[in-house]
């Protein structure tokens, strides 16, 4: 863009570019909907954990699904993460953060489970002496 064009795009004012943009961050309806969803999901989590409606070994999976859903609700309704253009960088950073978190948690669990499985039992070590 040439200098002459720039002058027509940004009229002279005494603020740096980008200062003073007053974009609303949310609405009462948004926060209330978020709270409602969060309460419903929390209630569902407690119900799943304490009742016998779900097959026992499946309960942790159900709880994980509900927890992830609730994190999504918090991200969208409280942290205002969206698909909007101003949010592209935030979403990409979140994706990278999720990758690292997944690697750290699942990697630790995987490695430690293998170490546990391959460990010589303490009684066997005693017999070796």
């Amino acid at each position, binding site marked *: *863009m040439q200098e002459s*064009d720039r002058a*027509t*795009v*940004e*009229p002279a004012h005494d603020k*740096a*570019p*980008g*200062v*003073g*943009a*007053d*974009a*609303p*961050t*949310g*609405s*009462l309806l948004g*926060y*209330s909907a*978020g*709270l409602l969803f*969060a*309460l419903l999901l*929390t209630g569902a*989590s*407690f119900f799943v*954990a*304490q009742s016998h409606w779900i097959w026992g070994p499946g*309960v*942790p999976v159900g*709880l*994980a699904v*509900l*927890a992830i859903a*609730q*994190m999504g609700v*918090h991200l969208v309704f*409280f*942290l205002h993460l969206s698909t*909007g*253009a*101003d*949010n*592209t*960088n*935030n979403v990409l*950073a*979140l994706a*990278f*953060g999720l990758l*690292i*978190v997944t690697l*750290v*948690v699942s*990697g*630790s*669990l995987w490695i*430690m489970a293998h170490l546990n499985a391959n460990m010589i039992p303490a009684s066997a070590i005693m017999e070796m002496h």
Partner: protein
Amino acid sequence: MTRAPLTDLPMTEIPANAVTATGRGGGGPAPVRIVVAYGFWIFLLSDIIMFSALFAAYAVLSGETAGGPTARELFDVRHAGIETLCLLFSSYACGIGALSIERRRMGAFYACCAATFILGATFLALEVSEFAGMIARGAGPSRSAFLSAFFSLVGLHGVHVTIGLLWLVFMVAQVAAQGRKEFVLRRLHCFSLFWHALDIIWIALLTLVYLIGAR
């Protein structure tokens, strides 16, 4: 920033999404508010990654009780439920507070900040009483690897809540002293991001430690 009408530009230089797409390079530099929130979001993600290491440690060590009390004996799910409600409503109050100051309703803003603080402090008091009760029962952090992991994970979240409460007090004082200035609003925005992110960590904590652990 009020943008000049784009019709002054030669047509070839206007991206299709120029009006809204500051994040994609069109329509001039992104508003400072967006840039600051992005930087703070990066910090929050790094914080979440730090928590993920402690979550991994807890998940690995949750069975290593060394003959001591187990999760099922120690945790009270109803207690954790009340703590969750405190945090959820505190977050909601924080959000309504952010809306109020945007709309220049200062009375509502201070009331929401007070509610945010009281609910957060209630959460913290419940957590401290839980910790004190466990230590009194001989289930302190030095009892077993499971309890060391538990106290570092839940304790770190508690430390974050404490820092958040202090930050809230500073922000209210700043609003009272400086008014609705641009930098004050940006800091408030960062605070509300921090406070909401603590909720996300608590959801993971509640599910892994209390709901799955106490079954």
